């Protein structure tokens, strides 16, 4: 059993309430931080812990905090990014639903470290029932003196609010999130200036993912050195992985960084193997935007080493033979899954969610969806496959925000690793569109 830093008490009855959470050591980091530490010391602890942003990009959290500008006379803001919308990823929803006080505790300790007097949790509008859970927990924190004026007599005051989004994946991008929080369309901003200088209402702002903020209490309570002991290399600590797709035990698992991918998929402690006794065809390891990998490459790197659940090992080989840990949205496809159909649904998602601000993304995502639709529905041409790669290349790197890359990578990777499956669809339109039709290697030999 791996160590559980975030989810140790997740199954305790009543842990969603302040009293039970407090009995299990809850809010200790707030007491320690406010009574015995300076804000600067907390920032240094988070830096030394090696914690990397758990929203997907993996940027060092402490370093992000240290960039925060501190001009005189301007408020600073901490905004929690709870706009979890990446297909395959559902860990933040689980964490907020089961342990709302953990996020609130993290928000208080982090806000103190950053010198914020008002903080927001921006939660995706579809998770309105989670918003109600958080609001109830926040009210309890106010009632017990952990929010509001003069917290625990320390002289530090903080207001914390939950803000619902309106159903737009793009608002998970930090500058789009800030635009949305200001009451506008969620169009990403040009960077620089970065939010650390020009964020919410033009003030210095840190935007952090739910899991990142929820990790801060453990680091403050147990020290950065203890946190950094867990994991491998620059992938320190634990990571929540949301596992889905064709596996026996879908769910959210807290893993110690560094277990093998094979152990994660096949051991009973985690995914429990592939459902219905089938074989595995492919895995998307870090949310829909990261490159898909076929079975052989997800289990072993190109050098034949065991692939580990770490930032570095999963990205080993670059995009030619590797992928990314991303947000930890891990979904597995069995040998009966159709890669073409799956890629089409992802392209449709990104087309639907493009904000439309940049032409390569607005037009390119729609173009990829159309081409994939016709291949999937038996009207594709062989040159369509290269067209997909060409469009993906022209989107990648040519947009204000990373949504363009996120749309291009899965399509390019699907063609890179499963080209013969696309060709089979084009060559055998009737067979490929028949109900339950699935490409296998044997059929490519027949063709």
């Amino acid at each position, binding site marked *: 059993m791996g160590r559980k830093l975030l989810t140790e008490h997740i199954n305790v009855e009543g842990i969603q309430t302040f009293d039970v959470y407090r009995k299990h050591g809850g809010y200790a980091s707030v007491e320690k931080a406010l009574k015995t530490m300076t804000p600067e010391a907390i920032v240094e602890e988070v830096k030394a812990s090696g914690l990397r942003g758990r929203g997907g990009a993996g940027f060092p959290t402490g370093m992000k905090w240290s960039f925060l500008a501190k001009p005189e006379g301007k408020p600073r803001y901490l905004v929690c990014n709870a706009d*979890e*919308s*990446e*297909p*395959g*990823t*559902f860990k*933040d*929803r689980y964490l907020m639903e089961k342990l709302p006080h953990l996020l609130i505790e993290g928000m208080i300790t982090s806000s103190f470290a950053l010198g914020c007097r008002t903080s*927001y949790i921006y939660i*995706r*509008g*579809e*998770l*309105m*029932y989670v918003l*109600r859970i958080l609001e109830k927990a926040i009210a309890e924190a106010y009632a017990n003196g952990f929010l509001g004026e003069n917290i625990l007599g320390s002289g530090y005051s903080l*207001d914390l*609010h939950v*803000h*619902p*989004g*309106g*159903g*737009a*994946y793009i608002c998970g991008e930090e500058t789009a999130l800030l635009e*949305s*929080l*200001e*009451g*506008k*369309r*969620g169009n990403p901003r040009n960077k620089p200036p970065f939010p650390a200088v020009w964020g919410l*209402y033009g003030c210095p702002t840190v935007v952090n993912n739910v899991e990142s903020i929820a990790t801060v209490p453990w680091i403050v309570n147990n020290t950065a050195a203890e946190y950094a002991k867990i994991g491998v290399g620059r992938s320190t600590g634990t990571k929540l992985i*949301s*596992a*889905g*797709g*064709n596996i026996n035990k*879908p*769910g*959210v698992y807290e893993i110690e960084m560094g277990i093998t991918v094979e152990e994660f998929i096949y051991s009973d402690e985690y995914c429990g193997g592939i459902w219905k006794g089938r074989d595995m065809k492919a895995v*998307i390891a870090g949310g*829909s935007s990261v490159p898909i990998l076929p079975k052989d490459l997800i289990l072993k790197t190109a050098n034949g080493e065991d692939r580990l659940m770490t930032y570095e090992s999963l990205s080993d080989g670059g995009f030619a033979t590797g992928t990314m840990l991303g947000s930890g*949205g891990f*979904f597995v*496809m069995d040998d009966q*899954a159709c890669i073409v*159909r*799956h890629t089409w*649904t*992802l392209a*449709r*998602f990104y087309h*639907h*969610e493009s*904000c439309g601000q940049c032409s390569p993304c607005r037009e390119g995502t729609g173009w990829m969806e159309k081409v994939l639709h016709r291949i999937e529905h038996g009207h594709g041409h062989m040159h369509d496959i290269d067209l997909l790669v060409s469009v993906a290349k022209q989107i990648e790197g040519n947009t204000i925000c990373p949504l363009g890359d996120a749309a291009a990578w899965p399509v390019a990777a699907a063609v890179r690793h499963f080209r013969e499956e696309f060709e089979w669809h084009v060559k055998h339109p009737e067979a490929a569109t028949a109900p339950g039709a699935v490409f296998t290697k044997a059929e490519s030999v027949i063709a």
Partner: protein
Amino acid sequence: MDQTVNKKEVQFSEAAMAEIRRYLSHYPADRQKSAILPILHIAQAEFGGWVSPEVMDKVAEILNIQPIEVYEVATFYTMFNLKPVGHHVLEVCRTGPCMLRGSDQLIEHLEHRLGCKVGETSADGHFTLKTVECLASCGTGPMLQVREQFYENLDATSADQMLEDLKASTVRKPWEENY
């Protein structure tokens, strides 16, 4: 169904206005426009599940901004219905992970049971069927959302039961007692 709202009739209940004032208090005095999304959610729940131009005008009036500022936000975010909808809106997730676990078949089943296609409302006015992109429920697909409720791991039998339960239920508003 309260689906024909003209400008004179747009009046939030006192309970809804209290909820609106609560949200307004979360933002700096000169940044009240921040409350636009929360208020649109309240408006949609208050006026039959959709936001008409008249309702959006009322939101602009509350926020003291131009109506166009509300229109451009309401049309950007997919959660806001700009046309009348049925008593219950079924939002089926159809993105990759749910597709792998049978969302295509679920949608087909619901279309058959309701006698309407995606985007349409059943003849009895009870249900509008919509598809959505990813609801962060990838481990429990296929699933759908009705207002604030998730229905997960659905199959034909449990989906049919859900329809029956919903038909018999009353739509309540989040700020009402015993919600």
